[in-house]
């Protein structure tokens, strides 16, 4: 009896993943049947004319994630170095606690901050009609993934063994050299996992991005224009899911977007586990 229950619970994990992928695939079948896999590279999304292309949201997701990582990785890594190497015990505890606090703020509250603090700031700074843009999404995501990068990198840096540090110090190397040639290379496997975890978090974040990205289904003009309203993979699903009729091609296209998201996230997770 006990054994049966434990075995059954252990199987639920596999069962959930399998049914999830199965049902998403089945629900996105109408789209795959009519368009095949080409919907991934179509540049137009216009449900009223049965145009379902994922390219605009893929570009949107790409820019918001890249921007978030470009901002959060240097800052988070610097904070991790500060925390692990330079601060005394008490300062370290305070910094770690403040990062945990930041990680604990619900994403919808970040959305509220983005909408009523960040957007007005952007509007006045860049003289924009609306601050809703990929830039706003990237900035907000950077804020949200900063704790992930900082906490995991700090753990990785602290895990570098004392022998390595002492040897470097005995050789008379100065602090910058020790940092760049000993600590960071040694901690790199942990740091790259921190970055990938943050990437996954940024990719899947929905409500906060939805509130600030502007939800405009068009490729940025030109492609690197971050100051225009745009759309990401998650924000489109969130915006349109309630409107789509069950079983329609529009519905199938949204489910297919979700399936794409899930598959990329799972591939990322496999990569993380291989590197661990």
């Amino acid at each position, binding site marked *: 009896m*006990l054994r049966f*229950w*434990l075995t059954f*619970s*252990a199987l639920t*994990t596999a069962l*959930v993943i399998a049914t999830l992928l199965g*049902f*998403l695939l089945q*629900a996105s079948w109408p789209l795959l049947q009519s368009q095949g896999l080409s919907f991934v590279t179509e540049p137009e999304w216009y449900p009223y004319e049965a145009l379902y292309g994922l390219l605009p949201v893929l570009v949107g997701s790409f820019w918001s994630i890249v921007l978030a990582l470009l901002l959060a990785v*240097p*800052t988070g*890594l*610097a*904070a991790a*170095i500060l925390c692990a190497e*330079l601060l005394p015990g008490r300062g370290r505890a305070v910094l770690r606690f403040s*990062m*945990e*606090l930041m990680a*604990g*703020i*619900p*994403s*919808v*509250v970040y*959305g*509220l*901050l983005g*909408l*009523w*603090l960040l957007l007005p700031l952007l509007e006045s700074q860049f003289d924009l009609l609306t601050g809703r843009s990929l830039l706003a999404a990237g900035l907000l995501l950077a*804020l949200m993934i*900063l704790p992930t990068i900082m906490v995991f990198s700090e753990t990785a840096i602290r895990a570098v063994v004392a022998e390595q540090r002492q040897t470097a110090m005995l050789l008379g190397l100065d*602090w*910058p050299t020790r*940092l760049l040639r000993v600590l960071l290379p040694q901690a790199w496997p942990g740091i790259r996992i921190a970055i990938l975890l943050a990437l*996954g978090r940024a*990719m*899947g*974040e*929905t*409500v906060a991005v939805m509130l600030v990205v502007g939800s405009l289904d068009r490729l940025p003009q030109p492609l690197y224009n971050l100051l225009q309203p745009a759309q990401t993979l*998650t924000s489109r*699903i*969130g915006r349109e*899911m*309630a409107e789509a009729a*069950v079983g329609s091609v529009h519905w199938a296209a*949204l*489910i297919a977007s979700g*399936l794409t*998201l*899930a598959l990329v*996230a*799972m591939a990322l*997770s*496999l990569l*993380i*586990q291989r590197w661990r």
Partner: protein
Amino acid sequence: MLNKFIIVGLALPALLLPGACLAYILFKGLPALSWSFLFSATEGTGFGATSGILAQLLGSLLLALAAILLATPFALGTALYYRLYASKRQQGLLAGLLNMLQSIPPIVFGLFGLIVFVHLLQWGVSLLSGAVILAMVIMPMLVLNSIASLERVPEQYTEAAQSLGLHHSAVIGRVWLVQAWPGILTGQLLGIARALSETAPILFTATVFSGVVWPESIFSPVTTLQTHIFYLAQEGSNQQVIQVAWGSAVVLLGVVAGFALLARCLSNRYEKTQRLGVE
């Protein structure tokens, strides 16, 4: 020397932003709080501008508690299987699957729930649909945490219990759970905090904007703080509504922080007894 200044300079946003964010939220939200705001559930006029948030608070808590109740038996079962029966290979496989499940974005669970629970099983937009979805979202972290807690039980205890000829169920009930419960409970509390913070998966599977104070059955929709903030935030024309949104944000943050702090206290105490045990 210059290098250290560069590091501090780069880290400056990380040093300042957490405090700044929190201060801004409190600055905006605290003025909205009042006795009637927290403890009345009357339907106000003007898109939630004047009503209290009792219904939303109850809905959030109800959904999170239902999710943890649904997830716990499976999470604990999986962790015990991992410790008790799984071979090295199975352990690796199980850990891999759990990490994979954890990596799937919450919105995807929302889509899955919408297809299966809301439409296929005809549960509708309901408490039950939302609770099952949230249970799936928090399940991996519960399992991984329980496994870690069980692994901290000293090996001698298990060996001693087994050499006494105790049955598996006695080893679990009389040794492992007695030793590991604070760690497991810490995980449950963090799971509740996590379930309270999720918005995307319940947005179109469990919640409505208004009209519910206490759900009539598990097949009725609820209103939650998370979705309340989400809807109110987009009502840009009415300053009073935004005020309510900030107030709700402070309350949500307070509840989440409450559960997280409880977990922290528990784990601090637990770690201390662990250390004493070693001496």
